[in-house]
């Protein structure tokens, strides 16, 4: 009994599938690059495929963490890519105006300026969604469309290149032998987890996501929570924007963070957060973002032409979404699986009789556990 319940706890853990996919993806690399898991030390820096996956995946993890909270409130934020572009553009154009580009105060001010702009964008999104009651996908579409224009306006349509040592650190630098961006990601994830899981904030976000009206009636300030969540998401996107522009030492209003919103949503979905809102898993999202980055790296390393990258991603989106759909599971795996995952019991009648016994058997067990 205890072993079976422990087994069930393991097989029903929400991180099981994302982690399994990640491990399989990592293992796929081994036959192609035998030293895939080896990490070596050169010039006091750690190098290796695993390190670079985390390094290049850092902006995506940040954006996806912010996106998770937005999706948990039942919303979506399409503007993150544009916000990242604006932030990078502002910071880089400010630094490039400085006489001494490596002056720490100037760099900090530039970053502060960029992040401030990002938060303003987030507040605007939150205002439209929460106070004006506009569908999130549409409200954030505005900055998605206009934001890239603004970023190009800031950089005057040019790609601004800078040469600043302190600024280089955030996205491309090393600290304690590890890429500095790993520390930034770790801090952001730790703060987010602490805020949402060690305080009631996460619960409030989930309650707003499952029923905003009901949570307002029980006294949760759902408007304020929504606005806060969008501002937080934009802040994360802003940090990601700083990282992207720092890594390339350049601000490109057109291409910085292009399609990162889609990757981020994908990461959140793979991580097991429902797009309908009401529950979320930060850990799942981090794993999901790593899955996407690993997928990209794998496609590079196993010699598949890189242009098929997007086709693979499309396949992943479809498979993950189908597996998450109760109706699909009911149709393909029969009534047993459908009943367990709370489908409305509209599985095909043909499939039902064979599995009825199994379904009735499974249901009470679920009650116990």
């Amino acid at each position, binding site marked *: 009994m205890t072993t079976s319940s422990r087994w069930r706890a393991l097989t029903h853990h929400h991180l099981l599938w994302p982690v399994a996919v990640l491990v399989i993806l990592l293992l796929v690399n081994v036959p192609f690059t035998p030293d895939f898991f080896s990490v070596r030390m050169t010039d006091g820096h750690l190098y290796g495929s695993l390190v670079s996956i985390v390094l290049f995946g850092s902006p995506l993890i940040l954006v996806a963490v912010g996106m998770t909270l937005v999706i948990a409130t039942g919303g979506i934020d399409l503007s993150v890519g544009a916000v990242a572009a604006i932030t990078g553009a502002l910071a880089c154009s400010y630094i490039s105006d400085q006489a001494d580009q490596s002056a720490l105060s100037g760099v900090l001010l530039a970053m502060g300026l960029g992040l401030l702009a990002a938060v303003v964008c987030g507040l605007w999104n939150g205002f439209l969604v929460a106070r004006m009651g506009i569908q999130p996908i*549409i409200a954030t579409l*505005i900055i998605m469309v206009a934001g890239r224009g603004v970023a190009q306006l800031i950089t005057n349509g040019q790609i601004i290149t800078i040469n600043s040592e302190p600024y280089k650190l955030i996205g491309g630098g090393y600290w304690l032998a590890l890429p500095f961006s790993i520390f930034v990601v770790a801090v952001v994830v730790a703060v987010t987890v602490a805020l949402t899981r060690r305080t009631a904030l996460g619960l409030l976000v989930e309650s707003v996501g499952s029923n905003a009206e009901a949570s307002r009636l029980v006294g949760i300030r759902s408007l304020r929570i929504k606005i806060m969540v969008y501002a937080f998401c934009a802040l994360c996107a802003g940090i990601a924007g700083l990282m992207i522009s720092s890594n390339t030492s350049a601000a490109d209003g057109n291409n910085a963070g292009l399609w990162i919103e889609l990757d981020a949503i994908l990461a959140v979905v793979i991580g097991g957060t429902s797009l309908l809102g009401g529950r979320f898993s930060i850990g799942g999202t981090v794993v999901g973002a790593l899955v996407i980055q690993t997928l990209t790296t794998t496609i590079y390393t196993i010699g598949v032409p890189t242009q098929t990258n997007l086709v693979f991603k499309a396949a992943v989106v479809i498979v993950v979404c189908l597996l998450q759909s109760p109706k699909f599971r009911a149709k393909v795996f029969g009534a047993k699986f459908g009943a367990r995952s709370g489908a409305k019991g509209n599985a095909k009648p043909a499939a039902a009789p064979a599995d009825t016994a199994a379904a009735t058997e499974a249901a009470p067990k679920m009650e116990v556990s």
Partner: protein
Amino acid sequence: MSTTTQSPSAPNSRTTSKAVRLLGDRRMPVLATALLFLVMYIASLSRYQNYGFAEPQVFMNLFIDNGYLLVAAVGVTFVILSGGIDLSVGSVIGFTTMFTAWLVERQGLPLLAVIPMALAVGALGGFLMGYVIHNFEIQPFIVTLAGLFLFRGLCLVISKESISIGDSSVTGMAQAQVSLGMGFLSIGAIVALAVLAVAFYVLHYTRFGRRVYATGGNEQSAMLMGLPQGGTKIAVYTTSGFCSALAGLLFTLYIQSGDPLHATGMELDAIAAVVIGGTLLTGGSGYVLGTVFGVLVLGLIKTIIQFEGTLSSWWTKIATGVLLCAFILIQRAMTARNKT
């Protein structure tokens, strides 16, 4: 089914609701867009009168330069009216340009054979997306997002580099001019106007059009009334896929090349055109004529920026965003008033 196919002037509609209808609640956004277009046009007339803005050809060029966008936006109008969204439009357009250019240039197939194939691929893509959306109850947003990835990826699978088209039948078709007395239209513009006419007829005068409105208005009610809303949804996405592929063909004619990065983000232009045209994003309310004005307004912004000369292209994006925002807020105000 027959109840829903009744015309709006059913005998049981009360006089008060008639008065409300006369006040033009639903048509207000369309009228606002038309008015905006008119104001912008007249303002540009006075500003650029020395540069030949007043020539009818400048107006015709709006259709020539934006025919593909109009066709794509018409497809998106169907989807949005049914309460869904289609993000795959730009990718399907890009894929069609690539597909056509590859078949015509690299495989040497005649254009007339390629056109039906391209349209079939687009429609099939739309059908599959609609099928998944309806049968597995996955959000349209995420399914069409997968479609976006898929078609953009397929573009790159065909070729990483752009393929320019030198085929004589394509260039001949692209350069053909249809004279209209005071100016001319390209074949692309004519096709776009024809698509518009068909869409207008289908949406406002056929059973299918009513089903689209009913599904977008209230899916639950539509289902309870016995409307085949599943079929409607699938048909709507198929229409959108077909329109996107057609828009891709027009875009190929317009630009005479296939490129894996063609039409990136055009789905947003199309959605913006539909929204600016006054179609409610929640579905169930709007007119395809509004979409035309939406496309015209966006096209006019581009034209003004060309005439202005000094303004840079990113102002197009900012202006589109600002307009989008304004019209969304107008919509919001209108629907809020409707409820009370």
